[in-house]
């Protein structure tokens, strides 16, 4: 029960020089953009917000500011979703970002918190082992034994800290937290208060406090939210990339950067190969071919953009170490099959059907068809 989680604020104080950290927080990385937005933002702000809802939207979606400064887009996709998310937080409701893995949920949540409060670090990582202390408070037992219960012996959770300071607390992977721990959120969200019976006190949230949670809707079954909790969240579902080109772009960038990181001695994959993999993923995910003419079954897996990236990287590795350094269909087949067939019976049928009815017929895809058939 000893939750020795340090308050994040002190972590930042002790942090190494900014340049040497592996990954900077959003508010650090985009400090300049936030500062520029504050400068021109003369619209009404909800209590304790650093920016107006309009400016938050501008920060996330990017664009050119009236003073000529260009804000980079943080979320590429449907602008209305971001508007709903911001409006939700402005109405004092908790926000639940829902979606399949790899749809920029945590990313969006981090940037929303950074833009609204300037602090994206009050974060609770949901796991099967997350206990109540992580959401409410824990005790410094050495102190507790010496001094007895006192506010000084209290180990404050990020949630409590956010309530005290009127900031936004983020919960990652809400559905992985055990149901009984999830339910501690109900009081926090509806009464906006956190009682500490041991000290006969309570922490009442200051204005500006709110919660952004992310959850994976593929794992609904793990610890599905109780309806009482669901009701306290406004749910925004983040979709997979809307267009083929958008997704190809994402895959290409990530594959290129991963390839650099792994220092693979392979050629950069042809756009054509990326297009093929992304096409397969999109078609199976959507249950219909890109031309909209043929329906196909969807396998049980997610087939997220992130998996397409890993199939490509995998193929590149195969080509680099076992092939001629050039990416061929044969290098992709195993990775592709592995990504699609998650359930050995059902998915196999789905994949086979897809190969027979779509891949086989498509011009210039014969090599992929043969390669995939071989590994099946």
């Amino acid at each position, binding site marked *: 029960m000893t939750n020795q989680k340090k308050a994040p604020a002190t972590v930042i104080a002790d942090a190494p020089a900014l340049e040497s950290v592996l990954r900077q927080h959003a508010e650090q990385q985009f400090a300049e953009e936030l500062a520029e937005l504050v400068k021109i933002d003369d619209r009404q702000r909800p209590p304790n917000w650093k920016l107006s809802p309009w400016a938050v939207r501008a920060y996330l979606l990017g664009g050119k500011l009236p003073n000529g400064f260009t804000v980079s887009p943080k979320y590429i996709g449907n602008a209305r979703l971001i508007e*709903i998310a911001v409006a939700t937080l402005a109405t004092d409701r908790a926000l639940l970002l829902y979606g399949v893995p790899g749809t920029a949920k945590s990313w969006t949540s981090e940037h929303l918190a950074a833009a609204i409060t300037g602090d994206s670090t009050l974060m609770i990582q949901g796991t099967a082992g997350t206990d109540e202390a992580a959401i409410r408070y824990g005790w410094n037992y050495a102190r507790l034994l010496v001094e007895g219960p006192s506010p000084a012996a209290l180990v404050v959770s990020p949630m409590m800290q956010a309530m005290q300071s009127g900031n936004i607390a983020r919960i990652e992977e809400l559905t992985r937290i055990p149901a009984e721990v999830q339910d501690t959120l109900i009081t926090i969200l509806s009464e906006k208060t956190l009682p500490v019976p041991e000290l006969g006190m309570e922490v009442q949230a200051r204005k500006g406090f709110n919660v952004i949670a992310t959850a994976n809707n593929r794992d609904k079954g793990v610890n599905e939210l109780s309806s009482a909790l669901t009701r306290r969240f406004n749910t925004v579902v983040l979709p997979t990339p809307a267009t083929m080109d958008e997704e190809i772009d994402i895959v290409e960038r990530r594959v290129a950067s991963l390839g650099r990181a792994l220092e693979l001695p392979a050629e950069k994959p042809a756009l054509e190969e990326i297009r093929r993999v992304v096409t397969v993923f999109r078609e199976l995910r959507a249950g219909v071919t890109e031309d909209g003419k043929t329906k196909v079954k969807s396998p049980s897996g997610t087939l997220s953009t992130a998996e397409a990236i890993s199939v490509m990287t995998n193929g590149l590795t195969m080509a680099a170490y076992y092939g001629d350094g050039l990416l061929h269909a044969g290098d992709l087949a195993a990775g592709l099959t592995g990504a699609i067939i998650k359930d050995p019976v059902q998915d196999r049928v789905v994949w086979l059907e897809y190969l027979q009815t779509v891949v086989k017929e498509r011009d210039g895809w014969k090599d992929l068809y043969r390669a995939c058939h071989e590994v099946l």
Partner: protein
Amino acid sequence: MSVHIFGVRHHGPGCARALRAALEALQPDILLVEGPPDAEGALPLLTHEAMKPPVALLIYVPDQPSRAVFYPFTTFSPEWQALGYALGRGIPARFMDLPQAIQLAREPVAEEQATPPADDLPAAADSGHPHSAPTDEKPAISATATPPPDPLAMLAEAAGYDDHELWWEQQIEQRRDSTGVFEGIFEAMSALRADLTPRDDEEAQREAHMRSSIRAAEGEGFARIAVVCGAWHAPALAQRDDAKADTALFAKLKRVKVETTWIPWTNSRLAYRSGYGAGITSPGWYGHLWAAPDRVPIRWATQAAQLLRGEGLDASSASVIETVRLSEALAAMRGLPMPGMAEMREAIQTVLCHGETAPMQLIRDKLEIGEAMGEVPPEAPAVPLQRDLDAQARRLTLKLTAEIKDYDLDLRKDTDRVRSQLLHRLGMLGIGWGEEQHTYGKLGTFHEKWRLQWQPEFAVALIEANIWGNTVASAAAARTRQLATVAPDLPALTALLERALPADLPDALEDLLERVRDRAAVSSDVRHLMDALPPLARIVRYGDVRGTKAERVTPVIDALFERALVGLPGACLSLDDDAATAMVTSIDNVQETVSMLNRDDQRAPWLATLRLLVDRDGVHGLVRGRCCRLLLEMRALASEELRRLAGLAFSPVNPPEQAVDWIEGVLRGPGLKLLQQDDLWRALDAWLANLAPDIFVTLLPLLRRAFSGFSAPERRQMGEKVKLLSVEEAAGTLGVRPSGEGGATHGPIAQERANTVLPVLAQILGVNYEPGN
């Protein structure tokens, strides 16, 4: 004397409200409305108490009902409100547009236009009436391909909106204070139409006619003339200088005789998505804007919550509160005075539906579009569908009488084929005038026997069916499409396909095939795929009698067939007895298809799949036996192979029930072919002989069942066969013997004993008997 022009948008609640208020203030003594003068006779019915919008004025050419125009009205149509006002006050109300008699005459005499793309719209009027713009959404459904640049879109763009619907909704329809609306619209349109040149001849003629109508009213001495027209036309109607030129434009145009009636309309048909090029996206929302006295967002969110509750979904009042708050926050963020439909929709999805899209479809269909269906008074004149049927019946010399009449239709004759089509089409519309009798024998594919009896309630059914289309053909096609959208599963679809085929509805058929293909792709039930095959195969095989294109169906069969083969091995695993029986039926269906089409590219993979099943453990005995038998019938199983399989099936390690299942599977169907399979019988015999007595007793009923399908002589022959086989084995004379046509074989003859009876036999047969011969 004064003329007041009100430019409106058809079906706009804001416009309707403003117009009503403006008319109350103006107190006109005559009302002119943009609409077909041909329909003036039908106007008095508008205030009939049985008239419930949405309804449509239908104007059609009596001898060609497929040429028709619909003018839909709903409560919040400005025209409806204006006409209601005029009829209520007893002031004259006139339509002033160019008569449809002229507009319908202009068209080339084209056959019924290909029905609009989407779902349930009837083959709507192909009036060729190029509706000028969304502002001028005169309901006539356009056949012109590219509409001219949309003036409304230009205005919206100038205002910084990319969605012109949204712009109009916010500017006009949501407005509660209507002061100055019409002046504003007029001014905006004048700016857009700076040169006032009509975009084409047709528009010129229409506007000329409208101007002439206004002049006529002026000439009759009315003091306050109210003119209601599409916003686009408003500036053009204000400039009435050249009367002569106007008259010249339309005076000499050709006319046809047209008729008018009211028909019920539906909200979904007012919406864009039914392919009705000039509609409104969300009649339900507009209706709500019209009907809700105040607090529009709250009422809307409450309705949504009630709808969701009705479907068993959670929707608490607290969530409704949050929905309204979110919608208002969204509106504030977007700088709107109040939440519009988009904000409401997003708020409902986010709060009430927890981000899910599935319930939103419900909201879309039931709330945003709405399910309202209009009603018209019984006094409304006969519908064109009735006329079309009368005309066709006359042409085909079929009488609509209550008397029972029998017909034997020979489909090779033109008249009979058309008769059959008509009856099938009516059947699709749920009008069971004719009842098809079963035919037997060789003439089956060319002949249909029908029993005809007209029942009075069919007249009512016809009025209802008119909603699908104005002719029997178009209505049946639209109805078929609609049935296809609600068909629960694949076999239901193919059954529908089989029903639709004799009705000869090529477009609907195409649509159905498309649906079959889509459904097949996502169907997880292999049996559905398999069961769907035979009707399709029949279409390909026998479709030629009716001139159906086989090449359309073949790709669908291929797709189904391939998917079925991929899924079949998996689907045959772990079946219980009932499921196995059903599976055998489905396998037989595929077999039927394969043998009916007789294509090598199907036969080979089918045989391969059957072979796979025959050998696979875990497949139910019945299925394996049946596959074995099918292979045998297709001459794809050598007798050694059969011996091996029979040996395996009857191995002592197998549970005896499985062996019985296997033999039942093999024995299904006619028995004669089996008689030659000595090895099969020998294996069966040996197995039976080795069964423990108690197991034998348990299995006996099952075995009896397996053999129950055969006729008595077949059974006797089988018995003799087995008996003979054991005799042979005893005698050690395995070998070739002559076997007769009926499978009657005879064993070695004991010559001595034969000699004793031969003389008697010879005497009976009347032949000479010489011993030793």
